[in-house]
């Protein structure tokens, strides 16, 4: 695609056509004091050698040699070099949105396979070509439920990722959507009794996450029945996709919103990751974004096209189902390659390793005097511990030992200042779990 900037003469011609004297005149609606008159304060250009040097220095700031026990929505998992080899192929890496089926069969087939995998994992009938990430997918799922139910109240569990809830609140703020939060129990699960008492026929959706932010698995069937009883939809968010290798898929959900980072995308500052939205076939026309569909060409051969795109912004403008303008095709491809390499058995094995290692870790940590399991609900690869002192103080000491300790829950949950969220995956060596437990024990044995 060529991009040809306008010449000064063409600009003048355009200005004359619309009756404006200058380009500045077009910005007059912006108050004078907000307009920029100086050049942006940016450093000057660098030579290639200087740019490479700059990035080498920044790369050196990465926490190499550290062992991390952080999860909370972003997970360290094994990934194969094959994934990157395929991603880096120019046909995928630099391809544009596959609007033209005749030149985009590879990308479209990859998206179609991604959708198929997501349906198989989530127990749903239809999945779209991907969303930005788990948080925006969750919000889009709520907006979808709002359109389907024609109602404006939403019940969201506090055990849903705090950042997912923040994104939802941002969307809800000026849209008339009313979001109510539901607390958690001693087991660390959403308070189902509070959901039941808050459910009325004005509720569009109940939103829960499983495994939830505390790492605990929610019991979905009861919540689904309660929601369906008043005509509300159940939205299930999943932040850790690998859990689906060990946990029953949330088939009772009406919409599943998932973060696909765990499938072949390394943890990186700010992403990019990929969101998933999957639902029932009958709800497909309220699904945001686009889908790749299988069809036959004029010669009767199997082929793929973008479908449902008729409801997107470039066609429907302000009447579009969503303001998402694209999808995460390359990240979705990473997930597709990764899952295809792993296979059904591989994913199950990986998930089982997470369960065993997390069980081993909690056993080691619980032996430390003053360290307690915070919630008694079942968990996958993350769990919440209560420590006898502030988690931040413990973490400062752990960093000296090259250990990134548990996530301090106090920031998002003021009632949990002594609580930390520990994550252990198949990548965490047993010896590192033991070193971590020993370090915590040592720190706590020192007086404050």
């Amino acid at each position, binding site marked *: 695609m060529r991009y040809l900037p306008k010449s000064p003469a063409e600009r003048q011609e355009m200005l004359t056509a619309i009756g404006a004297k200058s380009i500045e005149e077009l910005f007059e609606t912006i108050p004078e004091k907000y307009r920029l008159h100086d050049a942006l304060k940016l450093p000057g250009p660098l030579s290639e050698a200087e740019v490479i040097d700059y990035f080498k220095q920044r790369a050196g700031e990465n926490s190499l040699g550290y062992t991390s026990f952080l999860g909370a929505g972003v997970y360290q998992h094994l990934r194969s070099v094959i994934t990157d080899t395929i991603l880096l192929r120019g046909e995928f890496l630099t391809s544009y949105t596959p609007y033209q089926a005749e030149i985009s069969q590879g990308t479209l087939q990859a998206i179609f396979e991604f959708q198929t995998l997501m349906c198989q994992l989530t127990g749903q009938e239809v999945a779209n070509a991907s969303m930005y990430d788990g948080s925006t997918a969750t919000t889009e799922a709520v907006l979808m439920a709002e359109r389907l139910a024609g109602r404006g109240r939403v019940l969201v569990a506090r055990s849903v990722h705090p950042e997912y809830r923040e994104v939802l609140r941002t969307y809800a703020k000026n849209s008339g959507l009313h979001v109510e939060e539901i607390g958690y129990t001693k087991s660390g699960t959403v308070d189902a009794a509070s959901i039941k008492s808050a459910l009325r026929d004005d509720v569009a959706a109940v939103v829960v996450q499983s495994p939830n932010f505390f790492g605990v698995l929610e019991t979905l069937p009861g919540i689904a029945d309660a929601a369906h009883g008043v005509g509300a939809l159940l939205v299930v968010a999943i932040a850790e996709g690998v859990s689906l290798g060990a946990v029953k898929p949330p088939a009772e959900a009406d919409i599943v919103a998932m973060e696909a980072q765990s499938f072949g995308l390394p943890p990186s500052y700010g992403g990019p990751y990929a969101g998933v939205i999957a639902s029932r076939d009958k709800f497909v026309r309220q699904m945001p974004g686009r889908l790749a569909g299988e069809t036959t060409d004029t010669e009767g051969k199997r082929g793929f096209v973008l479908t449902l795109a*008729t409801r997107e912004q470039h066609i429907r403008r302000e*009447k579009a189902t969503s303001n998402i303008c694209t999808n995460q095709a390359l990240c979705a491809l990473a997930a597709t390659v990764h899952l295809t390499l792993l296979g059904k058995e591989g994913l199950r094995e990986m998930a089982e390793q997470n369960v065993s290692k997390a069980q081993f870790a909690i056993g080691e940590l619980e032996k430390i005097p003053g360290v307690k399991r915070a919630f008694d609900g079942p968990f996958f690869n993350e769990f919440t511990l209560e420590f006898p002192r502030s988690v931040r103080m413990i973490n400062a000491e752990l960093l000296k030992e090259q250990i990134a300790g548990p996530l301090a829950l106090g920031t998002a949950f003021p009632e949990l200042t002594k609580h930390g969220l520990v994550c252990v995956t198949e990548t965490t060596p047993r010896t590192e779990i033991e070193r971590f437990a020993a370090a915590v024990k040592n720190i706590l044995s020192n007086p404050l």
Partner: protein
Amino acid sequence: MAYPANYRYTKEHEWVNAKDGVATIGITDYAQSELGDVVFVELPEAGKKLETGKSFGTVESVKAVSEIYAPVSGEVLEANPALHDKPETINSDPHGAAWMVKIKLSNLAELEKLMDSGAYETYVAAKGKEASA
């Protein structure tokens, strides 16, 4: 396809067939030919009040999703249940089997503001010239 003489038409290409205070509404042959193959229709439920000029549903073709605007105001008595499974009827029989809703008219005078078949044919013919110009 001929435009029935007893129908009334809008500039947005809907037709109205009014009889005994009840109006049957659909989209015209010109509208269906512009849309292309129709794959889905969204229609209101019985009891919904339509306001003149406001959107009351959508028609989805392989090319686009378009709004259907109410030519007259009134309350929906029935939406055509057959269109859900056979939306392609809109392409094959737009003025007959592919009626969309039947409404109880709230203001009979509104019908007078709509075009008759002759005026609509002239309007559509002018559109055709515009497109080929």
